[in-house]
């Protein structure tokens, strides 16, 4: 396939107009010695039909999609109304650039404005940005922002935060002199209050926790925020399962200063980990420290309401090395999907979805706990994920389940050696009672 649009005649006419005889002459300023003297070593061009067959074959090599899976841990399989695909795939949404020219970008700009509003409503905070790359880099941006706001060097981060989010934060802070201290968890799967008390001091910029945390357990955001504020540190809540915001009290109402996280649950496909949808909301007074793009309302010369990208003075193309972040291109199309998803599910639908997740997870936890030898690891409240402990190494259980076409959960041995044979089980509204019973039965067999 070629996507060029010039006929041979066009090409000749244009070369003449450009005052050259051949295209090669146009590359004159590239030193002869570095030019590539051979053709690229790439497979020969495929036609559309061959390309489709090739990719479909590669896709079929994935042996995961057909299985009954209870994987979660930062990426969630949720119902997505058909309107999300049909509307978000429109060329007018897919093929424009960042809305730098507002007069011809009112569609995208108004949608960002609506997205910011929806995120604020869910987070219970005053302002939100247009998106960040994903939950992990969102966490890193939140940490950097906390340092900018407080001018303090130390950040406490809970061990119950998504392991990969913690790794990314570590990578980001390495070169800017932020000390990370990890907060251990207790029997209930929540941050250990005592250790927090000891670690908190006047050099602490923020207490960073995730709720529901990586174990699916809901942290006590109110207590954590109180503790942080007691030392004038910020309370930063990370959210990996954004759907929980529809059911759990809004973090902003519990004293949280910054909410950052992952909104993939809102109509963005699993797609092997990306593209996903990082988001951030915070208190109004942090506005000028906020990373990423923000859309705002204004009027045109005739007084009509319109929307524009605003507060660009925070951003790299104006501030350069003094910008609040280096982010430029973000995840606009994913934010669009989320906006369509949220407005379609609506006030009632979104809460119903969240409730079904909680109830199905509770049912699954109970069914699994009734399997001889299996117990729930943590006593804390959970949303749609929970950790179970099997009397056998999880790898062995997993192998048996897999043979039966089931992916029962995520083994935690690698990320949490201290938990031994535990596994994280996720149950969303897409799992039927029969699916859950099938899992429980299979685990029972695997252990008998």
């Amino acid at each position, binding site marked *: 396939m070629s996507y060029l649009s010039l006929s041979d005649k066009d090409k000749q006419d244009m070369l003449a107009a450009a005052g050259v005889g051949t295209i090669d002459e146009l*590359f*004159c300023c590239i030193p002869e010695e570095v030019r590539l003297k051979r*053709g690229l070593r790439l497979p020969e061009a495929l036609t559309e039909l061959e390309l489709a067959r090739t990719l479909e074959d590669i896709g079929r090599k994935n042996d995961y999609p057909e299985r009954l899976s209870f*994987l979660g841990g930062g990426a969630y399989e949720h119902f997505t109304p058909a309107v999300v695909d049909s509307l978000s795939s429109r060329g007018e949404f897919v093929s*424009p650039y960042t809305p730098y020219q507002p*007069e011809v970008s009112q569609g995208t700009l108004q949608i960002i404005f609506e997205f910011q509003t929806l995120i604020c409503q869910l987070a219970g905070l005053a302002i939100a940005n247009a998106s960040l790359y994903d939950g992990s880099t969102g966490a890193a941006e939140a940490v950097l922002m906390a340092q900018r706001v407080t001018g303090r060097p130390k950040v406490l981060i809970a061990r119950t935060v998504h392991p990969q989010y913690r790794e990314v934060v570590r990578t980001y802070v390495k070169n800017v002199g932020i000390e990370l201290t990890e907060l251990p968890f207790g029997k209930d799967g929540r941050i250990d209050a005592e250790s927090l008390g000891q670690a908190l001091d006047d050099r602490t910029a923020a207490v960073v926790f995730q709720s529901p945390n990586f174990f699916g357990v809901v942290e006590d955001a109110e207590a954590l925020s109180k503790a942080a504020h007691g030392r004038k540190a910020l309370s930063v809540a990370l959210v990996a399962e954004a759907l929980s915001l529809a059911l759990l009290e809004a973090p902003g109402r519990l004293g949280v200063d910054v909410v950052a996280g992952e909104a993939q649950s809102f109509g963005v496909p699993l797609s092997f980990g990306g593209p996903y949808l990082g988001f951030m909301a915070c208190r109004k007074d942090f506005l000028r420290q906020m990373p990423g793009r923000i859309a705002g309302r204004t009027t045109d010369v005739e007084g009509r309401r319109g929307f524009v990208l605003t507060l660009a003075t925070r951003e790299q193309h104006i501030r350069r090395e003094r910008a609040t972040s280096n982010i430029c291109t973000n995840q606009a199309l994913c934010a669009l999907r989320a906006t369509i998803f949220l407005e379609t599910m609506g006030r009632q639908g979104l809460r119903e979805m969240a409730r079904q997740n909680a109830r199905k997870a509770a049912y699954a936890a109970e069914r699994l706990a009734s399997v001889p030898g299996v117990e729930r690891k943590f006593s804390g409240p959970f949303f749609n994920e929970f950790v179970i402990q099997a009397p056998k190494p999880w790898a062995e259980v997993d192998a048996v389940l897999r043979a039966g076409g089931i992916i029962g959960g995520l083994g935690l041995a690698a990320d949490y050696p201290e938990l031994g044979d535990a596994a994280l089980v996720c149950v969303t509204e897409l799992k039927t009672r029969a699916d859950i019973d099938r899992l429980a039965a299979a685990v029972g067999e695997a252990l008998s």
Partner: protein
Amino acid sequence: MIKEVREPLIFEISSPGKRAGRLPVLDVPETMDGLAGAALRSDIDGFPEVSEPEVVRHFTRLSQKNYCVDLGLYPLGSCTMKYNPKINERLSGLPGFAACHPHAPAELVQGCLEVLKRLETYLCEIAGMDAFTLHPAAGAHGELVGMMMIRAALEARGDARKVVLIPDSAHGTNPSSAHICGYSVKEIKSDERGTIDVAGLEKAMTEEVAALMVTNPNTLGVFESDICRIAGIVHAKGGLVYMDGANMNALTGVVRPGDMGVDVIHINLHKTFSTPHGGGGPGAGPVGVRKELVPRLPVPVVEEKDGRYALSFDRPGTIGRVRAYFGNFSILVRALCYILSLGPRGVREIAEYAVLNANYIRKRLEGDYHLKYETPSMHECVFSDRLQKEHGVTNLDIAKRLIDFGLHPPTMSFPLIVHGALMIEPTETESKRDLDLFVEAMKTIAREARENPGILKSAPHVTYVRRLDEVAAAKNPVLRWEEAA
């Protein structure tokens, strides 16, 4: 379709009790025991309540308020707004890919891993590098990852150094990324050709300097002809050369950064490799490195052993993780599709026709608009509004007037070294007809600037909204809808 129609915010058409999304009746007990002890909310104040027909109309109408590549020429300099193949949209969404969970065991997602490995391999060949990481979610993310690898490599040598050199023509993300890496930035002036002043560089290049970040072709669309000498100077002082590959569209198949002394490079798949911009993302900014830096690659790394693929985490010397999971996977699928459909010849034709189209526009507009640098152009050309300024007309006025002709304006926000810049990048997929429509519009506007500047000042005239007050927007920011109390 009608200019006057103003689309309300969804919150303004919401009314209690309406709903679109519904779920099957719950098939398990009603219990909420699992959440006992957690603080729950009773509602989501102000959340919208509308019907499905209302949602469809809302977004269909909003979509028509956007200009886009599917509607016409989009000569936004430095953004490479080329055609995004529809087949790639379909293939990247195949259930076999879209339904794969990132925590799925590697044995069950061999197809996904094959996609990653293949794309890495092809990018290495195209850029002339030894290895690529596909983790970065965008160009700026790639810069950060690239500079982190440079820093880690230097630290391993015993000294991370303090400074990064960046030409004054560079994109804003360059200094910003260097800064997050803990480096201070020293600006390098451009010479009269618009390229790096080699003498100046030689002075600036000390043992304090970790790296030079060079964009090639630079943001003027000019190729840094001294690139080899420049690399030599940097290397001689123990520094490394980082190339911002956002403008790879000018080079594919013609010259490989790895062959001109570049140590680290990022490429914007959402530019050179045709993945759509989506109104601001998602994109992907893979980073390529030379052998010496391979140990620094972020984890995980995909490894292939006789046809089977595995993920390697245990890599001493790695900078660590830069993003959860494996990057913007479905964007990577699109880029792979693009390379496979073009093949060796097609990939070279990208650069050939991108440069031809840009030079055609340049030649046809010379005389109508001022060209600060006479140096030959590659894939884009940067004019300025100097001739029009005499009539009180700025590049902003020219840009807004182009909209009246059904066209998208060029880039104006940079390069900062050209005042009143008009950075024009047509890309290779444009037809002569569309190029000519743009040229004629620009010529008409040049004439209007002389004869009737008022019409430029008041432009645009045909859009849903006229010129918007961006100052007011920043002065008292209204960043969300709020229920009228």
